[in-house]
């Protein structure tokens, strides 16, 4: 085996932990430590599961992650606390996040997203799923615009999903190469 390729593979897997580590309940500080891409490697999840669409668990997992992205925008964070007293009943403490103002401006989030380039794809995916659920509900009130919209969404969603999965996998590869070259 080529030693160079084995090193590359190991570094890739180390930098982006296996999908077994995925747990949407890991909100807050523990969850935030994980690299963005590892939480969003939809292409890997699709490939590993062997299913075309791991729905609805796949959808809800990513919905949970997008909620945590919004949670990240808050200038404060909730951290586990081992202090005694009133906090026993509520063992968390509210602490100010470092670089609060850059967090408020969303600059760090934007930096992280640009680094990986996958978050917007997940949002597009969720937007398409949301439209597929919500637009048919408008048919009773606005029949013609809604049914034509449904036809269009039905026609383009597969193309969008294919492109998203390709861009996500490409984003993971690009970021992996960049991080390896830095190290």
């Amino acid at each position, binding site marked *: 085996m080529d030693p160079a390729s084995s090193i590359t593979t190991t570094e890739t897997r180390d930098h982006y932990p296996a999908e077994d580590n995925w747990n949407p309940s890991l909100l807050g500080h523990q969850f935030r430590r994980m690299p963005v891409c590892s939480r969003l490697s939809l292409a890997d999840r699709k490939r590993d599961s062997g299913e075309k669409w791991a*729905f*609805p668990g796949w959808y*809800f997992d990513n919905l949970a992650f997008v909620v945590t992205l919004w949670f990240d925008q808050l200038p404060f964070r909730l951290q586990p606390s081992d202090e005694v007293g009133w906090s026993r009943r509520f063992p968390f403490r509210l602490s100010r996040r470092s670089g609060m103002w850059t967090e408020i401006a969303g600059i760090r989030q934007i930096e992280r997203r640009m680094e990986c380039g996958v978050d917007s794809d997940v949002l597009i995916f969720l937007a398409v799923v949301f439209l597929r659920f919500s637009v048919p509900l408008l048919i*009773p009130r606005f*029949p*013609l615009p809604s*049914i034509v919209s449904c*036809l269009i969404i039905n026609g383009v969603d597969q193309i969008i999903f294919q492109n998203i999965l390709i861009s996500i996998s490409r984003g993971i590869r690009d970021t992996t190469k960049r991080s390896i070259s830095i190290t």
Partner: protein
Amino acid sequence: MRNWQNIHAFEVSRFLCYYRMVGVTLFELFHNRTLSLIFPNTFEYFFIFIEATRLRWSPSRLSRKTIIIAAAFIWIVIKLPQEYWIHVAQHDTTDLMKEHSWMLPAMIVAIVAILAGGYWASTRKCPPADVSLRFDADAGKPDLTPDQTAGANRTFVTCSFDSDLLEKIIMVSMISIIFSNVLPNVNSTKLQLSTGVAAIIIVNSLLSVWLARRGVGWSSAFTQFIAMAGSNVVIAFGFYLILRSGSGSIHLGNTLFFFLLLTLLVTLFDRYLPFYLARVCVKSPATA
């Protein structure tokens, strides 16, 4: 059922919808692509035709003969070639557009030409418009009086356990079978699924009629959906406990998905069936 005033159009669309649903169910059972050609999705384009007509004219003006000719035209001229192209020949329009760069501009030109032709025909060749252009289905004057709707509600309460109940069970069973082939981790057989659906719909119908006989009404379809969803979640939890106490198992995510799908369909069916019954009563009081 809610607002189509032309009973013939509704009957034809209902037939087309169930016909397609039977085809998709058979396809999911036997995986034979020719079934898509035999059972084409004429319903969708027929629905568009009626709604496009309603933008400028009252659909009540359409005669039974016109409606059947329109459905036959959509079936034979539009849908059969399209179904053959997609499901039998299995051509992908996206791939063809990548191979031939002229296809996308040609399609845009064709769509613009069809829209322009439609506008020209509707303004110059068709009869004068009955109403101004409108997209809101509730913008016009309702064809039913409150008394007629109330009478239909009474009819629904007294005779909703015959063909309507059977129709609901068949419709939801077919949709559940179709979705069971899409969702992962569905281990039940088609017969088990259909039996479960039938049992839940009967329970739902008993509950609806029981509430209606006690004068409980719902201000909107949404509140009715929430109330029915709440009762169905309780039923789902009951199933969960029963199966868990024995050797059975249940996939909670899929169960909730099926229950919400069933609730949505049954709620809309039960809510708007009285409107259809009222129209039938108005059009043909002797038979009603």
